């Protein structure tokens, strides 16, 4: 069973990374959106495998069911067959990817260092039951310890909603 979960993780991880790469490289925006959905689902699976069922559900409902629908919506609104024929990468793509890879290398180095000196990464993971029952814990944390950030986040959403309406509407 542990083997199964491990397998699951690597499957999801591979799926996520591959589809992420496709997101970046796909020529058609719809395709990259679909790949992004796949990546998100894989991430959701990893959440599940990380004992975060609530986040799993939230990921699927919000990201997959909400945000991505929005994306696809917009992609369909703005016709892209023109954009598809254009050059997809800008002039700085080579330098940019090199720099990004350099950043990745540095972060890898950081990981290596941390592990090497027995940082937090080398600790044994906490007991599986520590995060159960997940939803209740999240709810308590959200509404007890982090209620103020929660409200602020709701305000942020409201503002974003109004802003989106104002911008996208032809005439207010």
């Amino acid at each position: 069973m542990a083997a199964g979960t491990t397998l699951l993780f690597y499957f999801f991880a591979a799926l996520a990374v591959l589809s992420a790469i496709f997101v970046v490289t796909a020529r058609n925006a719809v395709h990259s959106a679909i790949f992004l959905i796949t990546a998100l689902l894989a991430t959701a699976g990893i959440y599940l495998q990380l004992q975060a069922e609530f986040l799993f559900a939230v990921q699927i409902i919000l990201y997959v069911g909400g945000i991505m629908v929005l994306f696809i919506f917009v992609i369909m609104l703005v016709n892209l067959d023109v954009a598809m024929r254009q050059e997809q990468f800008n002039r700085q793509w080579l330098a940019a990817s090199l720099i990004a890879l350099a950043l990745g290398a540095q972060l890898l180095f950081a990981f290596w260092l941390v592990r090497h000196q027995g940082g937090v990464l080398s600790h044994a993971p906490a007991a599986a039951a520590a995060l159960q029952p997940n939803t209740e814990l999240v709810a308590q944390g959200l509404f007890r310890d982090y209620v103020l950030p929660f409200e602020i986040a709701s305000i942020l959403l409201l503002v974003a909603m109004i802003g989106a309406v104002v911008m996208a509407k032809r005439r207010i």
Partner: protein
Amino acid sequence: MNFSSDIFHAYVFPILFAVIIVLLLPLLAGYIVLLERKVMADMQARLGPMRVGPHGLLQPIADAVKLLIKEDIIPESADKTIFWLAPVLSVTAAMLAYAAIPFGPVFQIADLNIGLLFILGISAMGIYGIVLGGWASNSHYSLLGALRSAAQLVSYETAGGLALISVLLVGGSLSMRSLVEAQERGGFWFIFLVPVGFFIYLVASIAETNRAPFDLPEAESELVAGYMTEYSGFRWALYFLGEYANMIVVAAIATTLFLGGWLRPLASFQAHLPGTSIELLDLVPALLFLGVAGYCFSLTRKQPVKIQEAVMALFGFICLALAGVLALPLIPRFAGLMPGIHGAFWFLAKVVAYLYVFLWLRFTFPRYRFDQLMRLGWHFLIPLSLVNVLGVGVAVVLHQQAGWGLGAALMVTTVATLLVAAWLAVADERHATAPASMAGGE
């Protein structure tokens, strides 16, 4: 997921059950179609399908065969992959949802502790089937239909989800099973506790499944067949299957959350068969199927053709067998099977009843205009559901902190919510002249 040590319960049984569902679902969908046509015919004072099989009882199979052997056309300018992917997506989404639906205390693939959220999320992914299909077929009808349905689903998901949340507040859990158990404990189905929530969810579920009177994405008069215009044959069948599977899913959700799941109606009614420990109400399922079987046999003689008679008789025997299965737990030796079998029966009965309401509404109401649809969603249902959630929350607080009876508190808040609903309706009427502000994708 809660990990069980028992290998059977963890792996074998769920997989088995899942296979059964996947196999049965098309058949079920087909017969729901038949039911629909029959009901429609009945309401319109005609006979409906009568040829294929007695009373058209074999019509679904005929349709399925026809669809499977039809030529499958892919438009030239379509995006092949996605065109191929879309129907599969919608069906997959629909079927995944069954994983968390409890067909009775036993028949459940997995009792997720976030079951409801899981179902919501998975069914939400059904949108992609529609949207991508509409986009991929590269036709205006399809695209417009897809955008319409996307807008419609997104806007009604909100209302429906909020309605469900009002139930969750009362039930205090996300797992379907524990929700049903809460109703069992409480002795009240939540439909009686949160009627407003049930109403909202009814409307929202109709809209989510693109059924009349909200079937704009496939409004023949405007968009030919909406997002399915370019589809034919097997893919079209998949869409069809997905749609009906979705209907069953929402019906199942409604059943579980509002109608007490597998619970027997009048659970507290105790009347034993004299001399035995058998409750009278437990006889009802068996007797029902016995009656149906008798009806079938009575019809057998009237069939014009031999083969028809044979099929009729076959159906009679099937009903007889079902009656036997349902009667089995009445025997004290097999009393252990009672909850599973009868729960499944009651659950399916309720589902069918809910679906019957769907059909009924479909044949009763004219189709909405798109702006009307959006206005109903955004100007009426969503505010109402928000108010409803608020009211239920207040009631729960009163129940837990102030020690009110839950029923009483909910009654008060429900009345308040209904007043708000009336006010909203009036305001919406006054607003109706203005053009719809959320005209979706157009």
